[in-house]
């Protein structure tokens, strides 16, 4: 018998990311793209595909898509057209989606991500524009579903990567990078919870080192980074398991059940899918002028990678910190403002990355909901640096700022939180603490120097944390030794 060495496998992953563009009006009509609204109230005959209506392309949607292409190092097509893609589904009013087939607006780009093994380029095959579909609501009772077309016709870009991604972590890093870029350039708000960023994931596995691709499966409409991560982990494991036990992978579309943490194949009864793409006759092909591309290029703001480099070189931040602070536009803009108001940027970045992100998480808040301006954390750092308040007090003040939105100076003044530096006052406190804790005093005198810590703590408590701990320490030692 020949001994078979356990085979090692690697995953080959490609992502199709749909991002809703943040235009004010829909891609082919002037209905609002605002999220929410009563069902079917952001609609008109055009987005409902009523007989005789025609699509009129939103110029801004094209410009946004070109910007997305420029920000991801794509080539912008000078000649592009839109195509009709047929499939029947009740949330798709015309029975076809207007998308782009063989002449996408942008192609051959890449983004760079950080991996365990350093930087990696994930190539982008294409970015094209298309229209979003509506939403189905299923009734609790009865045999009905209900269609809401408010989202129908919201402009989307689909960003198709090459299968350059090899793990769930890389997929997550890639998505985070795309999200940051799209937010930075202001073309999408990328709110996953509102469905404005969604990903379809193509996954296959193959023996490590093999050049041949395995058969792939597709998972559609994953709407959180966590879901993408978990779905990939589970699917890669499943495929390896199937192959190891002698099975074969079938090309299929699977649905990820995030609650159960597993996927299952979708019904394929009507899967005789043939999109029959053909040029959309209602929308003449577009000639994109070089001047337009130039103008849009000039309008691009500093991108996350550039900003990260600047944080490292200008503020001396560690690479990791700079990465976190540029991972979202809102966070980065907030930090940027705070940094501008401070002379101790490193300390500001620690507050923003540490306590601020923690509090936001705990309170389930968005950066936009922070009730105080970015200059306040800088003021807080200044108060510490000037010795007006101590570290623990600062933490309390910061919490208070989230509750009341008040200026840290005001909070400190109103609540009298300034560090107690008055020796005569502190001396009284120290004497009282020594009186009230004979045991600890005895311990200290027996040589247990650590007991001082307890006594300092008691003194701090007695001053509601306001005392200058350094001073207390000194006074205690002086008293006990003296």
């Amino acid at each position: 018998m020949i001994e078979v060495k356990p085979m090692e496998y690697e995953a080959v992953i490609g992502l199709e990311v749909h991002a809703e563009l943040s235009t004010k009006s829909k891609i082919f009509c002037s209905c609002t793209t605002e999220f929410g609204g009563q069902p079917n109230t952001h609609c008109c005959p055009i987005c409902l595909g009523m007989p005789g209506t025609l699509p009129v392309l939103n110029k801004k949607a094209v410009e946004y898509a070109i910007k997305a292409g420029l920000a991801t190092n794509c080539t912008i097509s000078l000649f592009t057209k839109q195509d009709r893609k047929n499939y029947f589904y009740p949330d798709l009013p015309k029975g076809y989606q207007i998308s782009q087939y063989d002449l996408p607006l942008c192609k051959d780009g890449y983004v760079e991500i950080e991996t365990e093994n350093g930087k990696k380029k994930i190539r982008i095959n294409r970015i094209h524009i298309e229209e979003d579909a509506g939403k189905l609501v299923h009734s609790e009772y009865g045999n009905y579903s209900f269609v809401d077309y408010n989202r129908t016709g919201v402009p989307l870009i689909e960003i198709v990567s090459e299968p350059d991604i090899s793990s769930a972590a890389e997929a997550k890093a890639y998505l985070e990078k795309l999200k940051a870029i799209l937010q930075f350039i202001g073309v999408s708000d990328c709110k996953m919870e509102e469905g404005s960023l969604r990903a379809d994931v193509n996954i296959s596995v193959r023996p490590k080192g093999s050049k041949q691709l395995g058969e792939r499966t597709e998972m559609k409409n994953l709407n959180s980074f966590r879901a993408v991560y978990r779905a990939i982990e589970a699917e890669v494991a499943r495929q390896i398991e199937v192959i190891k036990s002698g099975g074969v992978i079938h090309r299929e579309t699977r649905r990820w059940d995030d609650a159960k943490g597993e996927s299952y194949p979708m019904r394929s009864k009507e899967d005789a899918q043939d999109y029959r793409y053909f040029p959309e006759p209602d929308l003449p092909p577009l000639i994109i002028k070089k001047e337009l591309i130039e103008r849009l290029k000039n309008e691009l703001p500093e991108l996350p990678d550039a900003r990260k480099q600047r944080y490292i070189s200008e503020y001396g931040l560690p690479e990791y910190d700079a990465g976190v602070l540029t991972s979202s536009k809102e966070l980065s803009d907030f930090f940027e403002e705070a940094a501008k108001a401070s002379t101790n940027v490193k300390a500001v970045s620690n507050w923003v990355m540490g306590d601020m992100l923690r509090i936001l998480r705990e309170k389930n808040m968005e950066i936009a909901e922070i009730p105080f301006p970015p200059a306040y954390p800088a003021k807080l750092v200044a108060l510490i640096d000037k010795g007006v308040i101590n570290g623990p007090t600062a933490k309390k003040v910061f919490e208070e700022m989230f509750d009341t939105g008040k200026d840290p100076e005001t909070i400190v003044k109103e609540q009298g939180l300034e560090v107690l530096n008055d020796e005569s006052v502190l001396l009284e406190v120290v004497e009282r603490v020594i009186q009230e804790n004979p045991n600890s005093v005895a311990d200290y005198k027996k040589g247990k120097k650590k007991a001082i810590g307890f006594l300092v703590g008691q003194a701090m408590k007695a001053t509601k944390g306001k005392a200058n701990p350094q001073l207390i320490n000194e006074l205690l030692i002086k008293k006990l030794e003296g």
Partner: protein
Amino acid sequence: MTITKEIIEYIAMLARLQLDENEKNSMVADISKIISYFDKLKELDTSNIDAMEFLVMDEDVFEGALRDDIVGKSYDREDLLHPEEEEGSEYFTVPRVVE
């Protein structure tokens, strides 16, 4: 290319049309005839011919014709809903869709 009943059934499924046996048979006959008439086009030499020429307008579509991103008024829902929807309905009602 012979048009068989299977092809008609497949195409009908793609087009979401349901045909009874009579319809299928007459479609096989008619469509066979028409397609073989279409086959005449195969004689025509179309090498090096652009397929998109007709659709390209001789006017600047991007600057001249595309819409500015301005929100207009949407329609009243009752003017849009299917006439068979019940009064007061907020949605378009369809048989339950199993995903």
